[in-house]
């Protein structure tokens, strides 16, 4: 009981340590979503609109990669960035940058796969009209991405939810260094094992609140877009 009280105290008094961790988590995950969107949206649209040998294999692979275990991504990025790895000279292992990279790798497949599905469905509907308006390949991609914007926002939110909630990848490539690479999820894991339950629970509450807010936002966007243009 006193642990719960402690947790609320930390949140309500605006505990500096707690909110520094929350800030870093949000910064890392939001950066990852932004980068993954830049890569994943065009990739998904391209895959939706092009036909080439081996495309189905790529689509299945991409769908499978949506369920990539975060620890495996963490391990792969770790090997890439470690001293002896191909990108070891950058010296960015155990920094927030490495964490952004790992989370980006984790969620690009999610955003790309959802984008592919959405854009492909919309293309079936738009194909004749766009062909009759003489829209070229690049124009098609841009048009479909724009006209699917509300559905794609849901894809981005799904990516953010995944990034914010994962612990394996940031733990491995970030190292959970206090005040530098400690995120909500890695801190919860550490503080729980240390027995510091108020901080762990406080962070847990904030994390759940953020995930809830994200889902509410996704749902709200749906409802709002249905009432708008669609």
């Amino acid at each position, binding site marked *: 009981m006193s642990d719960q009280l402690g947790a609320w105290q930390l949140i309500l008094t605006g505990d500096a340590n707690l909110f520094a961790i929350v800030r870093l988590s949000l910064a890392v995950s939001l950066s990852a979503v932004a980068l993954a969107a830049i890569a994943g949206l065009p990739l998904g649209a391209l895959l939706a609109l092009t036909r080439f040998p081996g495309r189905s294999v790529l689509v299945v692979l991409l769908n499978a990669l949506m369920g990539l275990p975060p620890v495996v991504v963490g391990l792969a990025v770790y090997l890439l960035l470690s001293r002896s790895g191909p990108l070891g000279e950058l010296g960015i292992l155990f920094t927030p940058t490495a964490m952004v990279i790992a989370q980006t790798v984790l969620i690009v497949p999610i955003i790309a796969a959802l984008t592919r599905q959405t854009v492909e469905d919309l293309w079936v509907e738009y194909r004749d009209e766009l062909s009759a*308006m003489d829209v070229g390949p690049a124009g098609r991609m841009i048009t479909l991405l724009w006209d699917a914007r509300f559905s794609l926002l849901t894809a981005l939110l799904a990516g953010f939810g995944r990034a914010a909630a994962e612990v394996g990848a940031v733990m491995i490539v970030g190292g959970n260094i206090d005040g530098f690479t400690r995120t909500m999820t890695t801190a919860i894991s550490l503080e729980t094992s240390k027995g510091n339950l108020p901080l762990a629970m406080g962070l847990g509450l904030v994390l759940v609140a953020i995930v809830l807010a994200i889902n509410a936002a996704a749902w709200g966007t749906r409802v709002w877009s249905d009432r708008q243009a669609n």
Partner: protein
Amino acid sequence: MRAPSSDLPLVLDDVSLQAGSTTILKRLSLTITAGAPTLIVGPNGAGKTSLLRLCMGLSAPTTGRVSWGGRTDTTLARRAMLFQRPVMLRRTAAGNVGYALAQAGSPRKARAERIAALLDRVGLSELAQRPARRLSGGEQQRLALARALARDPELLLLDEPTANLDPAATRSVEAIVLAAAQSGIKIVMASHDLGQLRRLAGDVIFLIHGALCERGRTADFLDRPTTPEAAAFVRGDLVI
């Protein structure tokens, strides 16, 4: 605008279309030149939509040749098409017309003015800022007409644009089509409505089972059909 090359005459030379083992169009030869509207009539499944898609260059014939102004490449020079169920882009009415203008290469500076003029032409000025998908069926059909006219076409293909509309909405769509025809745009329109044939057509292409059954001036077709199928169609009998 685009290169001044012309899409007329539209020539179909011994064109057949097959989907698997089904023959959709059988050895059609047609020449479509500028002038009064041409209506493609015939029962459902006669191949009207397939013929229009070939005329637009959206699909290629299995055998035979389609050419536009002597060219056989399907580059859209100055033709536009209105589908039976036009798809509204997820934008406002004005946004839909603006999009079509941009694709047709209309200069950005003059666009707002042209959007307003086109919406006025189809009677949708009041609804310019309404999301296109929230317009009624008749309004969507008129907006699709504005989008097609935005391409500044000399050949406008229409696939039963009034099939799902009530008489009032049909009347306003036909008025726009007639005005377009009077401004010099060649209209080629699929229909299975005899009244529409009387109101609009200069000449008729009558299709049965994908084959050309009869072609001629509307008055001749209605008064002196030469084939029993056409005679039955004109009488209002069910032609299958």
